[in-house]
C-alpha cells in the first residue's frame, strides 16, 4: 500500500519537472526518426525481414526509452538520499523495499507511457504491429522489465554508494552501449565481426529484443518470449539481491 502511495508521489513529481520529462521523451523520439531515416536503406537488403525500417527499429526505440530512462529512478533515489528525504520516509512504517518499489513503479508508468508514444509514432510512420494491441502491451512490458533489471539496478546501486545524482547520470551512456550491442539496427548475420556477433548473441538485452521484434514483425514466438522472460528473471536474480546487500552494507 505504501509503495503505491510513493508511486503516486513520483507520478505527481514528473510534470513538475518539465525539463526532465521533456528531455527523457524527446531525444528517444528524435533518435527513432533520425536512425530510421539514416538506415532506411538497410530494409532494401535482400532477406531483411521487413521493407519498413521503422517497423524493424520500433522495439529498439522502446528499449532506448525504457533502459536509459530507468536510470532516472536511480537519479531520483540519489537525490532523495542526498536530501535525506529517503531517511525521512524510513521514519514512517515503510520498509526500504517499499520506498524503492514505490519509486520504481512510478518510473515504470512513466516509461510505459514513453514506450507507448514510440509505438504510436511507429504506427504513424507506417509500421504495422503484427500482434496488435496485446502484442504492443507485451513489448512495453518486456522493455520496462529489462530497464528495471539492467539500468534500474545499476543506477540504484550507484545511488546507494554515491548519493550523488550527477554520478548516477554520468553512467547513463552505458545504457546505449547495451542496446547498440544487439540486433537493434540490423540483423546479427550482417554484423561483420565474429566477436561482435558472439557478444550480441550472448547479450541478455538481445534475448529480450528478439521476441519484442517478432511481436512487431511476425507474431508470438512462445519459446523466444520465454527466453526473454528467463533472461530478465536471471538478471533480476543477480541484481535485486545485490542491491539489497549493497544497501545493507552501506546503511546497516
Amino acid at each position, binding site marked *: 500500500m505504501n509503495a503505491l502511495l510513493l508511486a503516486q508521489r513520483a507520478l*505527481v*513529481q514528473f510534470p*513538475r519537472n518539465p525539463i526532465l520529462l521533456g528531455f527523457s521523451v524527446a531525444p528517444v523520439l528524435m533518435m527513432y526518426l533520425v536512425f530510421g531515416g539514416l538506415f532506411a536503406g538497410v530494409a532494401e537488403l535482400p532477406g531483411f525481414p521487413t521493407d519498413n525500417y521503422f517497423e524493424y527499429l520500433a522495439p529498439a526505440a522502446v528499449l532506448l526509452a525504457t533502459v536509459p530512462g530507468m536510470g532516472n529512478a536511480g537519479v531520483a533515489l540519489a537525490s532523495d538520499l542526498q*536530501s535525506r528525504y529517503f531517511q525521512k520516509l524510513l*521514519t*514512517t*512504517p*515503510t520498509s526500504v523495499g517499499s520506498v524503492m518499489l514505490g519509486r520504481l513503479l512510478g518510473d515504470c508508468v512513466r516509461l510505459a507511457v514513453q514506450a507507448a508514444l514510440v509505438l504510436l509514432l511507429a504506427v504513424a510512420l507506417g509500421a504495422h504491429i503484427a500482434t496488435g494491441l496485446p502484442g504492443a502491451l507485451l513489448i512495453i512490458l518486456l522493455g520496462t522489465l529489462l530497464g528495471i533489471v539492467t539500468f534500474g539496478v545499476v543506477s540504484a546501486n550507484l545511488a546507494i554508494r554515491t548519493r550523488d545524482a550527477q554520478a548516477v547520470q554520468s553512467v547513463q551512456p552505458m545504457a546505449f552501449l547495451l542496446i547498440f550491442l544487439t540486433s537493434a539496427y540490423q540483423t546479427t548475420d550482417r554484423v561483420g565481426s565474429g566477436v561482435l556477433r558472439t557478444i550480441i548473441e550472448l547479450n541478455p538485452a538481445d534475448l529480450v529484443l528478439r521476441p519484442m521484434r517478432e511481436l512487431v514483425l511476425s507474431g508470438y514466438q512462445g519459446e523466444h518470449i520465454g527466453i526473454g522472460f528467463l533472461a530478465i528473471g536471471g538478471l533480476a536474480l543477480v541484481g535485486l539481491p545485490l542491491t539489497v546487500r549493497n544497501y545493507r*552494507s552501506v546503511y*546497516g
Partner: protein
Amino acid sequence: MPATTSPLDELLELAGSGHPPKLGDAILAEDLAKTYPDGTEAVRGISLRVRRGESFGILGPNGAGKSTTIGMLGTLVKPTGGRARVAGFDVAADSLKVRGQIGFAMQDVGVDDFATASELIVLHGRLHGLRKAEATRRARLLLRATGLVPVANQRVATLSGGTKRRVDLAVSLVHLPSVVFLDEPTEGLDPRSRTAIWELLDTLRRRLGVTLLLSTHHMDEGEALSDRIGIIDHGELVVEGSPNELKSAAAPTLEDVYLHHTGVAA
C-alpha cells in the same frame, strides 16, 4: 457567539484516548552501542530511561554520538550492541511498529522539494495508515498550528530553512506520535525562528503529552526544553539528571557542567 477552537485543541481532541497513559517508560535503552563497519565506535553502551510525557535532552559536542544514539532509537541506525525499546517495541525486532509510534525531525531536514508543504503532511499521514480525508484534516490543523498556512501550497524548495524545519516538524506530528525525536531541531536557524520552534515544541508537549527526546549542543535549548538532560561524550553517557540536579556550587550553570564533563566549551 461560538467559542473559537485552536488547532492544537482540535489535535488534542483527535489524540483523545489514543495516547498511552503517562505511566511507565517511553524509551528504555540498555547498553546500546554502535560500531560502524570502518571500526568507528560511535556509541559505546548507553543506558537511559525516559518516562512517558517526559522531555529528555541529549547534550554533547559534535561527534559525541548524539545523532547515532537518536538514530538507533528512531530505527534509522541499526545497533551493533545492547537493546532498546521505544513505545513498548524493540527498535531492532519491531522497527516498523516503533515507526508507527514515533515522529522524527532529523538534523538535516528531510523534505521532498517537489512537493508542497500540505502534500507532504498528507502523504506522511497516509504512510502512517490514515485515510485521505483524515490526513487532509490533520494537515490543515498542523499547518495552522505551525503557522504554515500562508505557504501551504508552495513547493518546499522555495521555502526558507526555518520554514522547512517547521514543515518537517508538522510532517513528523501528523499521526500524533506518542514519542518525538528531534535531532538538533533548531540548528542553523535565526534566533526568532529558534524561539518559535521552542514555543511550538513546548506547547505540543504540554498540550499533547508527547514524550520528547532531543539532541542539541546548545545549552540554552537543552535547558529550555528538557525535564532531564544527559551529556554524551565519546559515545558514552557521562552524566544525567534534571538541569538543577546537574548544577552545583562548583558548576553553577549548565555550560559549566558541560565543560566539566566534556572538557569542551559549549
